[in-house]
Protein backbone atom coordinates (compact mmCIF):
# COMPACT_ATOMS: atom_id res chain seq x y z
CA UNK A 1 0.00 0.00 0.00
CA UNK A 2 1.32 3.42 -0.96
CA UNK A 3 0.10 6.98 -1.49
CA UNK A 4 -0.61 8.08 -5.05
CA UNK A 5 1.93 9.87 -7.20
CA UNK A 6 1.20 13.29 -8.61
CA UNK A 7 0.00 12.04 -11.99
CA UNK A 8 -2.09 9.28 -10.44
CA UNK A 9 -3.68 11.76 -8.06
CA UNK A 10 -4.46 14.06 -10.97
CA UNK A 11 -6.16 11.33 -13.02
CA UNK A 12 -8.22 10.27 -10.02
CA UNK A 13 -9.36 13.83 -9.36
CA UNK A 14 -10.12 14.41 -13.05
CA UNK A 15 -12.36 11.37 -13.11
CA UNK A 16 -14.10 12.31 -9.90
CA UNK A 17 -14.63 15.87 -11.15
CA UNK A 18 -16.80 14.49 -13.97
CA UNK A 19 -19.38 13.39 -11.44
CA UNK A 20 -18.82 15.60 -8.39
CA UNK A 21 -19.07 19.33 -7.93
CA UNK A 22 -17.34 19.88 -4.65
CA UNK A 23 -14.13 17.90 -4.49
CA UNK A 24 -12.62 20.00 -1.74
CA UNK A 25 -14.94 18.48 0.80
CA UNK A 26 -13.43 15.08 -0.03
CA UNK A 27 -10.07 16.01 1.45
CA UNK A 28 -11.27 18.56 3.99
CA UNK A 29 -10.13 17.94 7.57
CA UNK A 30 -12.66 16.24 9.81
CA UNK A 31 -13.89 17.44 13.18
CA UNK A 32 -11.67 15.04 15.11
CA UNK A 33 -8.54 16.32 13.34
CA UNK A 34 -8.36 13.33 11.04
CA UNK A 35 -8.63 13.54 7.25
CA UNK A 36 -9.28 11.32 4.28
CA UNK A 37 -6.43 10.23 2.01
CA UNK A 38 -6.02 8.15 -1.13
CA UNK A 39 -4.06 4.91 -1.04
CA UNK A 40 -3.08 2.47 -3.77
CA UNK A 41 -2.86 -1.27 -3.25
CA UNK A 42 -2.81 -3.89 -6.01
CA UNK A 43 -3.75 -1.16 -8.52
CA UNK A 44 -6.94 -0.38 -6.56
CA UNK A 45 -7.38 3.14 -5.24
CA UNK A 46 -8.86 3.43 -1.78
CA UNK A 47 -10.35 6.45 -0.10
CA UNK A 48 -9.57 6.00 3.56
CA UNK A 49 -9.11 7.86 6.81
CA UNK A 50 -5.47 8.67 7.52
CA UNK A 51 -5.59 7.01 10.92
CA UNK A 52 -6.91 3.80 9.37
CA UNK A 53 -4.32 3.97 6.61
CA UNK A 54 -1.57 4.32 9.20
CA UNK A 55 -2.87 1.31 11.06
CA UNK A 56 -2.99 -0.66 7.83
CA UNK A 57 0.77 -0.24 7.34
CA UNK A 58 1.20 -3.09 9.79
CA UNK A 59 -0.49 -5.46 7.35
CA UNK A 60 1.66 -6.78 4.51
CA UNK A 61 0.73 -5.82 0.99
CA UNK A 62 -0.24 -9.32 -0.05
CA UNK A 63 -2.38 -9.88 3.00
CA UNK A 64 -4.25 -6.58 2.67
CA UNK A 65 -7.41 -7.20 0.67
CA UNK A 66 -9.19 -3.88 1.09
CA UNK A 67 -9.43 -0.86 3.33
CA UNK A 68 -11.70 2.15 3.46
CA UNK A 69 -13.75 2.71 0.33
CA UNK A 70 -12.50 1.28 -2.95
CA UNK A 71 -12.89 4.06 -5.51
CA UNK A 72 -11.73 2.22 -8.56
CA UNK A 73 -8.86 0.70 -10.43
CA UNK A 74 -5.76 2.16 -12.08
CA UNK A 75 -5.31 0.53 -15.47
CA UNK A 76 -1.92 -0.44 -16.85
CA UNK A 77 -2.10 2.45 -19.31
CA UNK A 78 -2.42 4.91 -16.44
CA UNK A 79 -6.15 5.56 -16.70
CA UNK A 80 -8.54 5.34 -13.82
CA UNK A 81 -11.78 3.35 -13.81
CA UNK A 82 -14.42 4.12 -11.23
CA UNK A 83 -16.07 1.13 -9.59
CA UNK A 84 -19.60 0.85 -8.24
CA UNK A 85 -18.11 0.93 -4.74
CA UNK A 86 -17.46 4.64 -5.26
CA UNK A 87 -21.18 5.34 -5.63
CA UNK A 88 -21.81 6.56 -2.06
CA UNK A 89 -19.12 9.23 -2.51
CA UNK A 90 -20.31 10.25 -5.98
CA UNK A 91 -23.97 10.43 -4.98
CA UNK A 92 -23.13 12.67 -2.06
CA UNK A 93 -21.60 15.36 -4.28
CA UNK A 94 -23.30 14.63 -7.61
CA UNK A 95 -23.11 17.33 -10.27
CA UNK A 96 -25.96 16.07 -12.48
CA UNK A 97 -28.69 13.60 -11.61
CA UNK A 98 -31.21 11.42 -13.41
CA UNK A 99 -34.16 9.82 -11.66
CA UNK A 100 -35.50 6.68 -13.30
CA UNK A 101 -39.03 5.39 -12.89
CA UNK A 102 -39.72 2.06 -11.22
CA UNK A 103 -40.22 0.36 -14.57
CA UNK A 104 -36.74 1.54 -15.64
CA UNK A 105 -34.84 0.64 -12.46
CA UNK A 106 -34.64 -3.06 -13.17
CA UNK A 107 -33.36 -2.79 -16.75
CA UNK A 108 -30.71 -0.36 -15.51
CA UNK A 109 -29.66 -2.65 -12.68
CA UNK A 110 -29.30 -5.48 -15.18
CA UNK A 111 -26.79 -3.45 -17.13
CA UNK A 112 -28.69 -1.62 -19.86
CA UNK A 113 -28.59 2.07 -20.71
CA UNK A 114 -31.29 4.50 -19.60
CA UNK A 115 -33.90 5.24 -22.27
CA UNK A 116 -36.05 8.32 -22.33
CA UNK A 117 -39.25 6.45 -21.52
CA UNK A 118 -37.76 5.37 -18.19
CA UNK A 119 -36.67 8.80 -17.04
CA UNK A 120 -38.81 10.29 -14.31
CA UNK A 121 -36.94 13.60 -14.18
CA UNK A 122 -33.44 14.96 -14.76
CA UNK A 123 -31.40 17.94 -13.71
CA UNK A 124 -31.58 21.02 -15.93
CA UNK A 125 -28.73 22.40 -18.05
CA UNK A 126 -26.93 19.09 -18.34
CA UNK A 127 -24.55 19.05 -21.30
CA UNK A 128 -23.77 16.11 -23.55
CA UNK A 129 -21.25 13.46 -22.42
CA UNK A 130 -21.06 14.54 -18.82
CA UNK A 131 -21.20 12.28 -15.80
CA UNK A 132 -24.53 11.70 -14.07
CA UNK A 133 -25.60 9.74 -11.06
CA UNK A 134 -28.70 7.62 -11.58
CA UNK A 135 -31.27 7.53 -8.80
CA UNK A 136 -34.56 5.72 -8.32
CA UNK A 137 -37.66 7.84 -7.78
CA UNK A 138 -37.24 7.23 -4.05
CA UNK A 139 -33.82 8.99 -4.23
CA UNK A 140 -31.82 5.79 -3.84
CA UNK A 141 -28.61 5.87 -5.93
CA UNK A 142 -28.58 2.99 -8.40
CA UNK A 143 -25.43 3.71 -10.37
CA UNK A 144 -23.79 6.25 -12.62
CA UNK A 145 -23.31 6.91 -16.30
CA UNK A 146 -22.62 9.45 -19.03
CA UNK A 147 -25.31 11.54 -20.72
CA UNK A 148 -25.94 10.68 -24.35
CA UNK A 149 -27.77 13.95 -25.10
CA UNK A 150 -28.03 17.33 -23.50
CA UNK A 151 -31.22 18.04 -21.59
CA UNK A 152 -32.71 20.18 -24.33
CA UNK A 153 -31.91 17.65 -27.04
CA UNK A 154 -33.23 14.80 -24.92
CA UNK A 155 -36.62 16.52 -24.69
CA UNK A 156 -37.12 16.09 -28.42
CA UNK A 157 -35.95 12.48 -28.38
CA UNK A 158 -38.35 9.60 -29.02
CA UNK A 159 -39.22 7.36 -26.02
CA UNK A 160 -36.86 4.56 -27.05
CA UNK A 161 -33.88 6.89 -27.49
CA UNK A 162 -30.94 6.46 -25.12
CA UNK A 163 -30.53 9.31 -22.67
CA UNK A 164 -27.68 8.00 -20.52
CA UNK A 165 -24.96 5.44 -21.19
CA UNK A 166 -24.45 3.18 -18.21
CA UNK A 167 -21.00 3.15 -16.64
CA UNK A 168 -21.70 1.24 -13.49
CA UNK A 169 -24.74 -0.01 -11.60
CA UNK A 170 -25.51 -1.69 -8.29
CA UNK A 171 -26.06 -5.00 -10.08
CA UNK A 172 -22.27 -5.21 -10.40
CA UNK A 173 -22.05 -6.13 -6.74
CA UNK A 174 -23.45 -9.48 -7.83
CA UNK A 175 -22.30 -9.68 -11.42
CA UNK A 176 -18.67 -8.69 -10.79
CA UNK A 177 -18.38 -10.12 -7.32
CA UNK A 178 -15.22 -12.04 -8.17
CA UNK A 179 -13.29 -9.22 -9.82
CA UNK A 180 -14.49 -6.19 -7.89
CA UNK A 181 -11.73 -6.22 -5.28
CA UNK A 182 -9.14 -8.57 -6.75
CA UNK A 183 -8.07 -9.70 -10.15
Amino acid at each position, binding site marked *: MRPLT*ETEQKTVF*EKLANYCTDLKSL*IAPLDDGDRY*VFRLNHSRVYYVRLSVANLATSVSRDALLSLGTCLGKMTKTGKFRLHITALPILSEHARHKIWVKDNGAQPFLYGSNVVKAHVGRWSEDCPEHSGVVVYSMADIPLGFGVTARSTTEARRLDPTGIVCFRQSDCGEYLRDEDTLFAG
Partner: protein
Amino acid sequence: MAPTKTIKNKHAANKSGIKGSKDAERSRNDGVLKSKGKPKGKAHTLVTASKGRPNIQELIARKKKKKTYSEKELAIPELNMITPVGVTKPKGKKKGKVFVDDKESMATILAIVQAEKEGQIESKMIKARQMEEIREARRAEAEKKEAERKARLEETKDSLRKKRKRSKQSGGSKGDDDDDSRDVKEFSSAGTKAVKSKKKKSVSFAAPE
Protein backbone atom coordinates in the same frame (compact mmCIF):
# COMPACT_ATOMS: atom_id res chain seq x y z
CA MET B 1 37.90 -11.13 -33.71
CA ALA B 2 41.06 -9.42 -34.87
CA PRO B 3 41.18 -8.48 -38.53
CA THR B 4 43.42 -10.75 -40.57
CA LYS B 5 46.16 -9.19 -42.65
CA THR B 6 47.80 -10.86 -45.59
CA ILE B 7 51.56 -10.45 -45.71
CA LYS B 8 53.22 -11.30 -48.99
CA ASN B 9 56.77 -11.52 -47.79
CA LYS B 10 57.07 -12.91 -44.35
CA HIS B 11 60.55 -11.44 -43.87
CA ALA B 12 59.67 -8.08 -45.41
CA ALA B 13 57.25 -7.36 -42.56
CA ASN B 14 60.05 -7.38 -40.07
CA LYS B 15 62.10 -4.61 -41.58
CA SER B 16 64.82 -4.35 -39.06
CA GLY B 17 65.51 -8.06 -39.03
CA ILE B 18 66.32 -7.93 -35.36
CA LYS B 19 64.16 -10.18 -33.26
CA GLY B 20 63.73 -8.05 -30.17
CA SER B 21 63.48 -4.66 -31.89
CA LYS B 22 60.45 -2.32 -31.61
CA ASP B 23 59.46 -2.81 -35.23
CA ALA B 24 59.39 -6.52 -34.84
CA GLU B 25 57.25 -6.16 -31.76
CA ARG B 26 54.79 -3.85 -33.51
CA SER B 27 54.38 -6.17 -36.47
CA ARG B 28 53.62 -9.06 -34.15
CA ASN B 29 50.74 -7.18 -32.56
CA ASP B 30 49.46 -5.95 -35.88
CA GLY B 31 45.75 -5.17 -35.81
CA VAL B 32 45.37 -5.79 -32.09
CA LEU B 33 45.69 -2.78 -29.85
CA LYS B 34 46.48 -3.40 -26.26
CA SER B 35 45.88 -0.67 -23.79
CA LYS B 36 48.92 0.19 -21.81
CA GLY B 37 48.97 1.59 -18.37
CA LYS B 38 51.28 4.38 -19.33
CA PRO B 39 50.14 7.20 -21.62
CA LYS B 40 51.34 7.39 -25.21
CA GLY B 41 52.85 10.79 -24.86
CA LYS B 42 55.54 9.43 -22.61
CA ALA B 43 58.16 9.17 -25.31
CA HIS B 44 57.49 12.71 -26.41
CA THR B 45 57.86 14.10 -22.92
CA LEU B 46 61.09 12.26 -22.46
CA VAL B 47 62.46 13.90 -25.55
CA THR B 48 61.52 17.37 -24.38
CA ALA B 49 62.88 16.64 -20.94
CA SER B 50 66.25 15.84 -22.41
CA LYS B 51 66.23 19.14 -24.35
CA GLY B 52 65.29 21.92 -21.96
CA ARG B 53 64.44 20.05 -18.73
CA PRO B 54 61.16 21.79 -17.77
CA ASN B 55 60.04 21.06 -14.26
CA ILE B 56 57.33 18.55 -13.38
CA GLN B 57 54.80 21.16 -12.35
CA GLU B 58 54.86 22.63 -15.82
CA LEU B 59 54.34 19.22 -17.33
CA ILE B 60 51.36 18.50 -15.14
CA ALA B 61 49.83 21.84 -16.03
CA ARG B 62 50.33 21.10 -19.71
CA LYS B 63 48.64 17.75 -19.27
CA LYS B 64 45.68 19.32 -17.52
CA LYS B 65 45.25 21.82 -20.31
CA LYS B 66 44.04 19.06 -22.64
CA LYS B 67 40.54 19.99 -23.57
CA THR B 68 37.91 17.49 -22.70
CA TYR B 69 34.84 17.54 -24.90
CA SER B 70 31.40 17.06 -23.56
CA GLU B 71 28.93 14.93 -25.49
CA LYS B 72 27.06 17.99 -26.65
CA GLU B 73 30.19 19.63 -28.04
CA LEU B 74 31.00 16.56 -30.07
CA ALA B 75 27.62 16.84 -31.77
CA ILE B 76 27.09 13.11 -31.99
CA PRO B 77 23.62 12.25 -33.22
CA GLU B 78 21.42 11.48 -30.22
CA LEU B 79 20.13 8.23 -31.61
CA ASN B 80 23.65 6.96 -32.25
CA MET B 81 24.06 5.75 -28.71
CA ILE B 82 23.61 2.59 -26.75
CA THR B 83 20.97 4.02 -24.43
CA PRO B 84 17.89 5.44 -26.16
CA VAL B 85 17.00 9.09 -25.57
CA GLY B 86 13.89 8.41 -23.55
CA VAL B 87 15.55 5.97 -21.20
CA THR B 88 18.31 8.22 -19.93
CA LYS B 89 17.44 9.63 -16.57
CA PRO B 90 18.62 13.05 -15.48
CA LYS B 91 21.55 13.01 -13.12
CA GLY B 92 21.18 14.20 -9.57
CA LYS B 93 17.48 13.54 -9.48
CA LYS B 94 15.90 11.36 -6.82
CA LYS B 95 15.21 7.80 -7.87
CA GLY B 96 11.69 6.41 -7.65
CA LYS B 97 8.19 7.84 -7.35
CA VAL B 98 7.28 11.12 -5.69
CA PHE B 99 4.21 10.63 -3.58
CA VAL B 100 1.57 13.22 -2.88
CA ASP B 101 0.36 12.79 0.63
CA ASP B 102 0.47 16.21 2.25
CA LYS B 103 -2.62 18.34 2.38
CA GLU B 104 -1.22 21.36 0.56
CA SER B 105 0.01 19.62 -2.58
CA MET B 106 -3.18 17.60 -2.77
CA ALA B 107 -5.22 20.78 -2.49
CA THR B 108 -3.22 22.48 -5.26
CA ILE B 109 -3.68 19.52 -7.63
CA LEU B 110 -7.36 19.48 -6.79
CA ALA B 111 -7.74 23.20 -7.42
CA ILE B 112 -6.01 22.92 -10.81
CA VAL B 113 -8.12 19.94 -11.86
CA GLN B 114 -11.35 21.52 -10.69
CA ALA B 115 -10.64 24.79 -12.48
CA GLU B 116 -9.88 22.89 -15.69
CA LYS B 117 -13.05 20.84 -15.43
CA GLU B 118 -15.21 23.85 -14.66
CA GLY B 119 -13.81 25.60 -17.70
CA GLN B 120 -14.47 22.59 -19.90
CA ILE B 121 -18.05 22.22 -18.67
CA GLU B 122 -18.69 25.93 -19.03
CA SER B 123 -17.44 25.95 -22.62
CA LYS B 124 -19.55 22.87 -23.34
CA MET B 125 -22.62 24.60 -22.00
CA ILE B 126 -21.96 27.74 -24.00
CA LYS B 127 -21.46 25.70 -27.14
CA ALA B 128 -24.65 23.74 -26.49
CA ARG B 129 -26.60 26.96 -25.96
CA GLN B 130 -25.25 28.46 -29.18
CA MET B 131 -26.16 25.32 -31.09
CA GLU B 132 -29.63 25.42 -29.59
CA GLU B 133 -30.05 29.04 -30.68
CA ILE B 134 -28.98 28.18 -34.22
CA ARG B 135 -31.41 25.27 -34.29
CA GLU B 136 -34.22 27.50 -33.07
CA ALA B 137 -33.46 30.09 -35.73
CA ARG B 138 -33.44 27.42 -38.44
CA ARG B 139 -36.73 26.01 -37.24
CA ALA B 140 -38.33 29.46 -37.21
CA GLU B 141 -37.06 30.07 -40.73
CA ALA B 142 -38.45 26.75 -41.95
CA GLU B 143 -41.81 27.47 -40.38
CA LYS B 144 -41.92 30.88 -41.99
CA LYS B 145 -41.14 29.39 -45.39
CA GLU B 146 -43.83 26.77 -44.93
CA ALA B 147 -46.39 29.42 -44.03
CA GLU B 148 -45.40 31.46 -47.07
CA ARG B 149 -45.79 28.43 -49.32
CA LYS B 150 -49.22 27.69 -47.92
CA ALA B 151 -50.32 31.29 -48.39
CA ARG B 152 -49.19 31.21 -52.01
CA LEU B 153 -51.05 27.97 -52.58
CA GLU B 154 -54.22 29.41 -51.11
CA GLU B 155 -53.84 32.49 -53.27
CA THR B 156 -53.57 30.47 -56.46
CA LYS B 157 -56.54 28.34 -55.40
CA ASP B 158 -58.62 31.44 -54.84
CA SER B 159 -57.61 32.95 -58.13
CA LEU B 160 -58.52 29.75 -59.95
CA ARG B 161 -61.94 29.66 -58.28
CA LYS B 162 -62.62 33.27 -59.22
CA LYS B 163 -61.59 32.61 -62.80
CA ARG B 164 -64.00 29.69 -63.06
CA LYS B 165 -66.85 31.70 -61.62
CA ARG B 166 -66.22 34.55 -64.02
CA SER B 167 -66.21 32.24 -67.07
CA LYS B 168 -69.45 30.63 -65.97
CA GLN B 169 -71.08 33.98 -65.35
CA SER B 170 -70.21 35.23 -68.84
CA GLY B 171 -71.15 32.05 -70.83
CA GLY B 172 -74.00 30.46 -68.78
CA SER B 173 -77.67 31.53 -69.02
CA LYS B 174 -78.71 30.35 -65.52
CA GLY B 175 -77.48 31.51 -62.12
CA ASP B 176 -74.58 30.01 -60.14
CA ASP B 177 -76.73 28.10 -57.71
CA ASP B 178 -78.42 26.20 -60.49
CA ASP B 179 -75.11 25.30 -62.11
CA ASP B 180 -73.70 23.98 -58.89
CA SER B 181 -76.78 21.92 -58.18
CA ARG B 182 -76.66 20.46 -61.65
CA ASP B 183 -72.98 19.53 -61.31
CA VAL B 184 -73.65 17.81 -58.04
CA LYS B 185 -76.50 15.83 -59.57
CA GLU B 186 -74.37 14.78 -62.50
CA PHE B 187 -71.51 13.59 -60.28
CA SER B 188 -73.83 11.70 -58.00
CA SER B 189 -75.60 9.93 -60.83
CA ALA B 190 -72.73 9.05 -63.12
CA GLY B 191 -69.58 9.48 -61.00
CA THR B 192 -66.36 10.60 -62.49
CA LYS B 193 -66.62 8.31 -65.53
CA ALA B 194 -69.44 10.42 -66.91
CA VAL B 195 -67.01 13.15 -67.74
CA LYS B 196 -65.02 10.82 -69.93
CA SER B 197 -68.12 9.66 -71.88
CA LYS B 198 -68.92 13.22 -72.84
CA LYS B 199 -65.81 13.48 -74.95
CA LYS B 200 -66.21 12.37 -78.50
CA LYS B 201 -63.61 10.12 -79.96
CA SER B 202 -62.06 11.70 -83.03
CA VAL B 203 -59.62 10.35 -85.52
CA SER B 204 -57.53 12.70 -87.61
CA PHE B 205 -55.74 11.85 -90.84
CA ALA B 206 -52.88 13.57 -92.49
CA ALA B 207 -54.12 15.91 -95.19
CA PRO B 208 -52.87 15.10 -98.72
CA GLU B 209 -50.74 17.80 -100.25
